[in-house]
């Protein structure tokens, strides 16, 4: 068990190094003179030369790579060419907002996808199943950013039910403490603050969760279906276990393992989709940060964001695996090695 | 005593690493002699299949040696290795997965000859047809795909595939355990006939002691990767020396109600065990 935890930690570290390497390679892919790009469009030859030196671009590639890794380990991903702010602190300031959005999207996803998948699997081949699958296919094909625009237009502009941008109304913003607006409101604001924060979060979270609901529900469906077809379900039926208990206690319990894995990976994918949603709703977050960096050709900021999102992804996967190891007897027994 | 074709010496095989290692074979030594049908019996996990897989090179032994005609296979030249591959063929347990579903029967049967080399088109055709008729299949089966055949027919095709290159040794890994009883008898008879007709040496792995008794001349009993008993079938079955062999033999049900009832009564009264 301990061996496997260490092995898993080692793998995570290896992945982090890999992500950093990929980002480094990407940073050298930029066509033309990196220093020229970094110094800005109107920089003089001297300024470019200066930038070249500060970035260490005149050193051999291996040394640059090493410097990059050392800096990255120390939490230094360079300086944004646009805001002239450290990339890490820039992203650090907005990361909580993104995490909050993703967690909210995740909750919506799980709340909808699990029941839908279960219902669909239980009714396999019948009308209900077909209807759910059709809805999922339609909803899974909708591009997130377009859905975000449409939701904002319909529920924000036409119906006026929800605010159309930002995390809080001007007078509803709580002091910035944790960066999680809902949490901050809970800590310092009154109930209307909380409501305001949640209201601002709802539309983006719904838009964000759409494609993930489809993926997760389909995954739950197929896991449930194979669970429901297994011998142990037949055995449970033959023991006189009522259908409700069969589905929840036997089916869902054993289908949950791989659902958890998928949900964990979705967390990472959601962080990347947040780029699109945040751009639409002009929410401060890693996504908006990345979007503005792209628009401003701020390559180091873009790559910094890539690295951070990769980091979040790896850490989530690590946590999910460790959780799974501790709750699933199948995995646990393999670890312990009992035949 | 007949010439020894394959000599297995101190064969050991471990799977896995460090704390989780599992000893599948533990210094197994035996000879496979010209013309005999040697049975390897044991329960699941006894290592019987691992022996066969080491013999055909699908598994690499952890230690020990395998020699063919007196030459250690670990040190032979490439041409001798080719000869071994041609002389030693194998039949698998599962007739459903041992034939490539995307090939016609003709392609499946020609392949070993093409790989081994040295067969003209005419020869290939003739050999396939000869063997096909011997196992009771027809020429027009040749252009069909495996999915068109029943389990028993597929196992016959597997037998032909193993025999087309003219091997001296046939290794059988539980070839009938996946078949229905009525089909099982046909395939057993077929292996028996082919063995006589083609003067084959057979290593027959099985968990069913009755099948081994019907087919084999000599038997090796394996338990957890070790040989516990070895000898001519009549002797081992008639007077087993090892306690494990005796347990195995006693557990085989006999299709005779009177005998079985008596045996059970004896068991239940003699032991309030476990």
């Amino acid at each position, binding site marked *: 068990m301990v061996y496997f935890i260490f092995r898993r930690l080692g*793998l995570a570290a290896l992945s982090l190094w890999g992500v950093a390497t990929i980002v480094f390679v990407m940073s050298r892919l930029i066509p033309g003179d990196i220093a020229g790009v970094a110094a800005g469009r109107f920089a003089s030859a001297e300024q470019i030369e200066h930038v070249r030196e500060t970035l260490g671009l005149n050193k051999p590639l291996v040394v640059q790579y090493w410097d990059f890794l050392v800096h990255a380990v120390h939490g230094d991903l360079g300086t944004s060419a646009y805001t002239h702010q450290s990339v890490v602190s820039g992203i650090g300031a907005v990361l909580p907002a993104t995490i909050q959005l993703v967690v909210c999207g995740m909750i919506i996803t799980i709340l909808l996808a699990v029941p839908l998948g279960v219902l669909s699997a239980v009714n396999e081949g019948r009308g209900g199943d077909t209807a759910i699958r059709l809805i999922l296919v339609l909803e899974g094909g909708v591009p997130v950013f377009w859905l975000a625009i449409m939701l904002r237009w319909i529920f924000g502009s036409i119906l006026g039910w929800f605010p159309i941008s930002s995390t809080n109304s001007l007078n509803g913003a709580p002091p910035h403490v944790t960066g999680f607006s809902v949490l901050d409101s809970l800590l310092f604001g009154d109930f209307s603050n909380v409501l305001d924060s949640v209201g601002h979060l709802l539309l983006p979270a719904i838009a964000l969760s759409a494609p993930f609901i489809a993926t997760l529900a389909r995954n739950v469906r197929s896991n449930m279906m194979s669970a429901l077809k297994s011998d142990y379900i037949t055995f449970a039926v033959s023991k006189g276990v009522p259908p409700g208990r069969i589905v929840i206690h036997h089916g869902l319990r054993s289908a949950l393992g791989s659902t958890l894995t998928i949900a964990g990976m979705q967390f990472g994918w959601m962080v990347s989709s947040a780029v699109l949603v945040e751009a639409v709703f002009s929410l401060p977050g890693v996504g908006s940060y990345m979007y503005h960096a792209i628009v401003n050709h701020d390559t180091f900021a873009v790559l910094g964001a890539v690295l951070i999102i990769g980091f979040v992804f790896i850490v989530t996967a690590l946590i999910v695996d460790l959780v799974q190891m501790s709750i699933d007897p199948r995995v646990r027994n393999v670890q312990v090695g009992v035949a | 005593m007949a010439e020894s074709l394959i000599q297995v010496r101190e064969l050991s095989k471990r799977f896995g690493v460090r704390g989780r290692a599992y000893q599948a074979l533990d210094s197994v030594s035996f000879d496979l002699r010209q013309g005999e049908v040697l049975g390897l019996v044991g329960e699941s996990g006894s290592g019987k299949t691992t022996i066969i897989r080491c013999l055909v090179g699908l598994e690499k032994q952890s230690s020990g040696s395998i020699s063919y005609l007196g030459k250690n296979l670990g040190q032979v030249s490439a041409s001798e290795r080719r000869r071994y591959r041609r002389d030693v063929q194998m039949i698998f347990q599962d007739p459903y997965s041992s034939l490539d579903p995307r090939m016609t029967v003709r392609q499946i049967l020609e392949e070993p000859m093409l790989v081994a080399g040295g067969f003209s088109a005419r020869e290939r055709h003739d050999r396939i047809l000869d063997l096909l008729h011997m196992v009771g299949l027809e020429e027009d089966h040749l252009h069909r795909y495996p999915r068109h055949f029943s389990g028993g027919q597929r196992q016959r095709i597997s037998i032909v595939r193993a025999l087309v290159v003219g091997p001296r040794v046939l290794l059988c890994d539980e070839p009938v355990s*996946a078949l229905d009883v009525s089909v099982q008898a046909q395939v057993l008879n077929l292996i028996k006939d082919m063995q006589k007709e083609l003067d084959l040496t057979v290593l027959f792995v099985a968990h069913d002691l009755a099948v081994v008794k019907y087919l084999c001349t000599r038997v090796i009993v394996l338990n957890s990767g070790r040989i516990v008993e070895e000898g001519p079938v009549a002797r081992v079955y008639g007077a087993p020396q090892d306690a494990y062999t005796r347990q195995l033999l006693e557990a085989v049900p006999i299709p005779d109600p009177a005998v079985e009832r008596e045996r059970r009564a004896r068991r239940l009264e003699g032991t309030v065990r476990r």
Partner: protein
Amino acid sequence: MKTEDKLPPGLPSTHPDRRGEVSFAYRFSTATSPLAVGRGLGGLARRLFGAKTFLINRIAFGLVAVLLLLALLGPVLAPYDPNAPNTNAALQAPGAVHWLGTDDVGRDVLSRILTGATQTLISAVLIVVFATLIGVIVASAAALAPRWADEVVMRVCDMFMSIPSLVLALGLAAALGPSLTSIIIAMVAALWPATARLTRGILRETMTSAYIESAQIVGMSRLRLMVRHAIPNSLDAIYVHASMEISGTIVMMSGLAFLGVGAPPPSADWGSMIAQGQDFITTAWWVSLFPGLAITLSAVAFGLAGDAVRSLADPSSRRS
């Protein structure tokens, strides 16, 4: 054929050897694969649209056929020049002249969607084809290589997969500069590792089947094993994966374009059309709405078709 071969899914097979679960590759390879039979275009058409295919699958294949046709003929069918601004006709609502309205510089939305179809759909197909090719080649090479090299290649794939593909593609495309080529390169770079990983898994499973082992015993070289047995028997699963990928690729491409890393203006791209229209959505909803519908329709059509291909390849799920 024996009776048990025809049992519906879920019913137990009584054959002693069929107990336990049937593996992915095994299901795809030894079962009667309809993808493998019916050679030629006629056979393909019968497979896809024949009476035995489910209605929903036929609809999906029909939609995909229509979409691909539109992609090929888009520029010809477009009633107006998609890139010609006409300030006199800016932001016109859908009507008899401009069926889907015009954008802020007076370009015909329908014409732009039609030309955009060519670009989006063809590049999506190309991306998936390239990513699959690279993935299959890498996976096959890894399967043939010594174990340590195999391990290294797979670890590299894992590392690529540790960055969500949208972000990876975004970073790459941003670094390479806005153009259709850089989007294609970025997307292929982001997608191939997953395909390679999957293909390696399928190959590994196929390689353990008894028919491969029996070829190994006769002394067949590993290269020939791959080419003769392993790859052909893995193809179904690879096709299925590829066909499922197209839908996601379309959506992701449009997302990249939406963020401004796609083909530079004035090129008609569905994603950038939506981006362009979002600022005046309250007054001219049609500029954003219709390209979005086009993306959704394409994604759904290709998604359904992918599902259909899977159900054709896997008889045990042949039910709709």
